[in-house]
């Protein structure tokens, strides 16, 4: 006789005000497969924890986003935000889909070049560009988005020794009615800094002003803020045209679109409430089309969306290490995924789904990671089915930032696989070995020996 699946015995006190369990079954349909590949097999072949990236989801998401914008506006260009996820395999899926590269450091710039991106299609953002970085970007005719006046002066100095006309834009920050106002990057619109910087660029005669850039915030839940930002950039562009008879080529609206994650403290799930690509596209394109650009002079619209394009394509598989109780009797579950791998657990209530069948009985649990650190909390309060030691859970919507902001802390980083559109699994980053870390270390001669 085949044995039945075991579930630990539970008893729960029925209290007034306690949520009922009915209807939760959809949320807790087990996630046994990702893109047709069994979670069990993935863990068997590549270990646990394991990052899984769905190529199919990346492609369908970028196409959804492209469609939302191109059906509303004549000239649209996406640029892949490297910092969101700069695994080469991920970048190249976006490059195959026509995205340029958007980088914020010399390291990322180099990565984009090595991936084969034409220097003319690299947007160089951020406050930290060294003189060498800038020189290289000018040589390659990349699009340099100036963050501060010191950078502008450095570029002007470089033009003394180089026979190229740098292609530049400025980053503009502004009040779009949202909280908090991001005013640490770029030049402020309201107090005239931005207009001032644009005049300096135009008067210098040494730079080609190709565009205007803004990036109004992160995880924006109001599409309307983008309409305000697009309107303000359009005003600056038209001001330049009137004063210098110079048309800029593009307006870069940056990124910041919210993904389908649920922020801590929000009542309804993000998958229901967060704006869609259509909402963002409608706000931005309407503002640009309604601005005073002459119809044949509409600038190209560049989008540097990162999070919303990759979050849903990423999964993190973990395994249950132990079930415990706190001193007050609360259930806690320890899994092998910690905040070292899931940085975003600090601000999202990540959806966790068991990878094997279970009943509708649940326990309210705290989920901890494996680190010997008090901050290692994955979920503070989640109604989870009764997981056994060794069971797998799939954490969804983790593709953004976790594979770049992760920490090599206490333990090594695991494998990353990508499932292609034909359900084939590819290892795209190997797990770290002890040597991956220690090979970089140098031991001073006098510390090599000790007696204990």
């Amino acid at each position, binding site marked *: 006789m085949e*044995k*039945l*699946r075991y579930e*630990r*015995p539970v*008893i*729960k*006190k*029925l209290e007034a005000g306690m949520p009922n369990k009915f209807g939760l079954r959809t949320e807790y349909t087990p996630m046994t497969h990702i893109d047709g590949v069994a979670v069990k097999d993935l863990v068997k072949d590549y270990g646990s924890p394991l990052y899984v990236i769905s190529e199919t989801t990346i492609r369908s998401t970028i196409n959804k986003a492209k469609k939302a914008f191109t059906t509303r506006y004549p000239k649209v260009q996406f640029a892949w935000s490297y910092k969101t996820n700069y695994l080469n395999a991920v970048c190249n899926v976006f490059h195959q889909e026509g995205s340029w590269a958007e980088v914020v450091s010399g390291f990322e710039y180099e990565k984009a070049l090595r991936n084969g991106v034409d220097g003319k299609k690299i947007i160089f953002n951020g406050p930290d560009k060294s003189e060498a970085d800038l020189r290289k970007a000018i040589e390659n005719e990349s699009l340099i988005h100036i963050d501060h006046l010191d950078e502008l002066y450095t570029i002007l100095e470089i033009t003394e020794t180089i026979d190229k006309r740098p292609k530049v834009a400025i980053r503009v920050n502004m009040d779009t009615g949202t909280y908090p106002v991001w005013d640490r990057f770029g030049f402020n619109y309201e107090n005239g800094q931005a207009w001032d910087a644009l005049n300096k660029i135009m008067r210098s005669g040494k730079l080609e002003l190709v565009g205007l850039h803004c990036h109004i915030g992160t995880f924006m839940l109001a599409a309307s803020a983008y309409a305000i930002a697009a309107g303000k950039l359009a005003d600056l562009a038209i001001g330049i045209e009137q004063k210098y008879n110079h048309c800029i080529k593009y307006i870069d609206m940056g990124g910041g679109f919210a993904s389908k994650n649920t922020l801590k403290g929000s009542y309804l799930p993000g998958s229901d409430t967060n704006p869609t690509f259509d909402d963002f596209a409608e706000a931005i394109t309407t503002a640009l089309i309604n601005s005073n650009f002459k119809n044949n002079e509409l600038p190209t619209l560049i989008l540097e969306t990162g999070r919303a394009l990759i979050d849903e394509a990423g999964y993190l598989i973990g395994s249950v290490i132990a079930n415990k109780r706190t001193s007050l009797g609360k259930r806690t579950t320890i899994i092998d995924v910690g905040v070292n791998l899931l940085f975003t657990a600090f601000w999202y209530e990540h959806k966790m789904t068991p990878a094997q069948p279970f009943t509708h009985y649940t326990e309210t649990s705290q989920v901890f990671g494996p680190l010997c650190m008090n901050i290692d909390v994955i979920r503070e309060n989640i109604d989870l089915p009764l997981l056994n*030691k060794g069971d797998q859970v799939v954490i969804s919507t983790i593709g953004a930032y976790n594979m770049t902001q992760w920490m090599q802390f206490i333990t090594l980083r695991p494998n990353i696989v990508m499932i292609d559109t034909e359900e084939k699994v590819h290892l795209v980053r190997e797990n770290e070995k002890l040597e991956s870390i220690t090979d970089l270390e140098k031991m001073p001669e006098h510390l090599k020996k000790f007696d204990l």
Partner: protein
Amino acid sequence: MKINKNIAISDTGFVFNPLNGESYSINPIGIEIINMMKEDKSFEDITHTMLTKYTVEDATFEKDYFDFIGILKHHNLIDTNEQA
């Protein structure tokens, strides 16, 4: 260890303790264990039955069993007097 006599358990896993007015909900494996306890089965008997029926290791079941008993005690569903 005995389940308190007055306690009624329905097939759906609803438990009512008439002594203090509390109600509880138990999952099917929990009901099975309580029913065996009511029949005065020993821990060894219960373990044997469960290990034969379900895919569970000895150590896991033992841990879960005593965790469960601990919660039953906490809710005063086990008659501790009889033990003495």
